[in-house]
């Protein structure tokens, strides 16, 4: 196998899971039979873009609806997780320490974004926990390890993050506060390293939660009724993401107009976070629109045929 064949297989691995599951073996066979060309690599990249942005689901109409709702639930879940990280980065850049210009419209928008985030998080986590139980309990009873193992992922990642965060909090309380060490002091490098490690663990845990939850949902072959319910919750999450993005844009514009607000690195972080929020809002909105179309496209009775 030469470099081009290896690259083609690597590109194939980046296709959406449903597409890979359906056509992956056939495409590997085709790549193996054909003379590897660089143009085919470009073709795979273009095909991958189309497969992600305009996914097509095969099978019977009910199966197509099921896969569409599943894709919407997973996409919005991942968009919501990304919005959490972006909101945290935005908060760090404007509120740690609080900027002098964070008042008036900027402050109102910032607070509103925080409320939207908390309400959405409460809804997503509460319903997510119920879905998680409804998924893992039957899988556990049926000894479906291929579902149970990824389904345990979110719980393990949340536990790991809480453990690491507790250790960092203890470190901050006993080492940084008592020893009166600041980032500017000789030991500041060590503190910075601990903080950066904590940020990396946080990002890793959020990504891990989203990824393992998505894998568990795909493998569990969840029925159409539950997926319809999860799509409704995903709709609320998408509204929350959009609310956060709107609040972020208003807050950022107000800070920039106030002058003397965001400066240097904080401007980059703040603007970058808002750009991420807007992008995930667009992704969630497009996916939700497709999910709602699939939800409306069939008779209500059809929902009960695949539970």
């Amino acid at each position, binding site marked *: 196998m030469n470099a081009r064949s290896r690259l083609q297989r690597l590109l194939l691995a980046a296709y959406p899971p449903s597409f890979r599951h359906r056509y992956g073996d056939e495409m590997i066979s085709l*790549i193996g039979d054909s003379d590897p060309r660089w143009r085919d690599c470009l073709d795979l990249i273009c095909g991958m873009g189309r497969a992600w942005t305009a996914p097509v689901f095969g099978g019977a109409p009910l199966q197509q609806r099921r896969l569409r709702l599943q894709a919407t639930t997973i996409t919005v879940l991942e968009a919501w997780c990304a919005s959490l990280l972006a909101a945290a980065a935005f908060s760090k850049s404007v509120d740690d320490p609080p900027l002098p210009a964070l008042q008036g419209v900027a402050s109102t928008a910032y607070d509103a974004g925080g409320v939207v985030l908390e309400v959405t998080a409460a809804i997503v986590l509460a319903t997510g926990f119920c879905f998680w139980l409804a998924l893992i309990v039957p899988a556990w009873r049926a000894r479906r390890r291929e579902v149970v193992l990824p389904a345990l992922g979110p719980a393990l990642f949340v536990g790991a993050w809480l453990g690491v965060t507790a250790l960092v909090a203890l470190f901050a309380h006993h080492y940084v506060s008592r020893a009166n060490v600041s980032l500017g002091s000789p030991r500041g490098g060590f503190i910075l390293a601990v903080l950066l490690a904590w940020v990396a663990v946080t990002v890793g845990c959020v990504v891990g939660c989203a990824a393992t939850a998505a894998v568990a949902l795909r493998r569990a072959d969840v029925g159409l009724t539950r997926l319809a319910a999860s799509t409704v919750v995903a709709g609320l999450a998408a509204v929350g993401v959009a609310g956060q993005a709107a609040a972020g844009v208003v807050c950022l514009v107000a800070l920039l107009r106030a002058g003397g607000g965001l400066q240097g690195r904080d401007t980059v972080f703040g603007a970058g976070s808002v750009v991420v929020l807007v992008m995930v809002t667009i992704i969630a909105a497009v996916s939700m629109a497709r999910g709602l179309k699939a939800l409306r496209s069939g008779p209500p009775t059809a929902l009960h045929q695949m539970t």
Partner: protein
Amino acid sequence: MPRVADDPKWHDPGLLVMGSLAEGPKHGYAMVQDVEQTTGVRLGPGTLYGAIARLEARGLIEALDGGESRRRPYRLTGRGVEVLGQQLATMQRFAGLGRRRLARLSPVLRGAS
């Protein structure tokens, strides 16, 4: 009922795939070879399977059991035969009309030059 606007056009790889399958069931590699030999167009793996996925989702082609082999053959469905026939008839009418118009235009152009 899918929209007619979604039906494959001449420039659409979907039409090339359907035209190839009009000869009989074929797997991916055989389709690539057939399309290249008959039209000179080489379908890349991403384009080919993107087209196959869209055609299959619209019920114009269907997969056959490939047994143990990873090469799964496809064939046209009844609706696929109907849609391909309509497309080819439209293209034939357009080609005939275009030729007649060109034939009338050619003497004028020759006179102008």
